[in-house]
């Protein structure tokens, strides 16, 4: 179910990119897309009845059933990349606003 939801979230992001023209909304749409994607990646690592992949004094043996730790690591990377891109996009948006006085892509003109 959560996996379906994550794909739907990605689609919402794409919808946002398709229908919006405000720079900030576009960035938000990109983020929604990324969040959906990240959720999807985490969800492919889930193993039914699996434990959190950390050895603790309770789950102390590696022989127990854990969920797949690799997607978590991937998502970590993906999130950080998302943060970086978002920061850059916001900086660009700010700069564009300084220059054109608007956040609307259509109003910025040009070919």
């Amino acid at each position, binding site marked *: 179910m959560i996996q379906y939801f994550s794909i739907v979230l*990605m689609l919402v992001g*794409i919808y946002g*990119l398709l229908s919006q023209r405000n*720079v900030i909304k*576009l960035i938000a749409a*990109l983020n929604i*897309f*990324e969040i959906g*994607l990240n959720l*999807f*990646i985490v969800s*492919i690592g889930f193993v039914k009845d699996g434990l959190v992949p950390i050895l603790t004094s309770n789950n102390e043996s590696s022989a127990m059933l854990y969920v797949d730790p*690799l*997607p978590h690591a*991937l998502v970590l*990377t*993906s999130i950080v*990349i998302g943060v*970086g*891109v978002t920061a*850059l*996009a916001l900086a*660009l*948006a700010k*700069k*564009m606003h300084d*220059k*054109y006085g608007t956040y609307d*892509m259509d109003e*910025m003109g*040009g070919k």
Partner: protein
Amino acid sequence: MNTSFIILLIAVPLGAAFLSVLVKKLGKYFLGAAIGFNLAASGILAYDYVSPVIYEIGGFKPPYGISLVLDEYSLLGILLLNVVFALIAIMACKYIKKYEVVLSVALAALNGVILTGDLFNLFVFMEISAIAAYILTTMNKNIKYTFNYLVLGTLGSGLLLFGIAVIYNMFGSLNIMDIQNRMAIISYPVAGALVLPLALIFTGLSVEAKLLPFSGWARGVLKDSNSLVGTLIVSAFSAAVLLAFGRLIDSLFVMSDSLLIVFTVVTVGTLILAEIAAFSKKNLREILLFSSIAQSGLVVALFLQGLKSAALLVLINNVISKMILFTLAAKIGEDNGTDKLEDLKGVFLKNKVLGFGFTAAAMSLIGLPLFFGFIAKANVLVSLFEANNIWLPMVILIVSVIEGAYVVRMLTTLWNTGEEGELAKAEDAKQYKLTNKVRLTIIITIAAIAIVAAGILPLLQMNDWFNFDILSFLTDGLGGV
């Protein structure tokens, strides 16, 4: 061979980038050192190359750790990339100020894109190089195109990651070779199930490789970019991404017939449409950027046909000649305030040496004999015919006519003054400027000579140059030195 050089190709520029933030004043020296090191290291790697090496980062054997793969293919890639990168950096060094760090990072990332043997790592490096490209393109006057690029690039890499995740889910591995092996041992057909991930990966890479219709960002970003940014994107970035594209197609793309057809339609469509678009353009840089898009389409189409060597030759030709052409186009644009062809009649009269470089590159681009492009084109056609493919050669040749027409228009206009119906006179070129930069002139001359030499020497030396396998040439020719 000291295999550590493989990782140092990435680690040294990265380290240089980190350090140059610390000591800002030394930034350009760090960048220069990194570029120099990479040149030397790729030279050493090529010199010592015997057989493919897999470098296990962290000491974990593949497929568990991330591995870098140095085979003929990536060796060719890093040689090409580092040389081109170094030349561009030297030619356009006046724009580098403040962007040294970004360039170092881009250098590391592009080397990573070529070398990596891991899907997710490929994504990471693609993303780093893309972000570096976004930042570089903010040098342009109009940053809204950069935003455009950013949105598309991010969406594209998101789709790429989506595809990688699906692949991981299906095969349980991220190592490209391992996935290939796992596919090979499956006894039932896998092509049908791979449609989704392959289409997504294809889309993701296409955005950066500038295939139509994924390359909407390219025009805005490149049409008034300077000789650093524009040249880097049309030659170095595009080379690295196409090489990664080729590697994935070669190893992962188990395509159903219909998927192959769709991919081929996209790539060949890119070739045709972009050449037509280039034909309709009147500005130097726009012509070149569309031509670059078209060549990307051709390269990917050849990879899809399984013709690795031919695709690589086209790629090399395109990268080297685009480097010269775009640098000069940007320079002409900057010196004269416009890069509109109509306003630049006879501009090369001001600087004939640069004009010759431009001409050699342009003629190589359209594949005229005695230039390297012809060797590439002949190889493409021979290998296509040997694969019993008749229609693709036809398309390529018809498109070549269009390409030739606009390139010749460019050349004749840039060399000759005078309105239509009047004799060309040298005095009419007075108002132009094409300043002479020693570094630029030297590099362009050397590159142009290399293009001509690489077009003539094979004819004189190899009896089967039209079947030239560049990958084995690298092992036999360079490894055996």
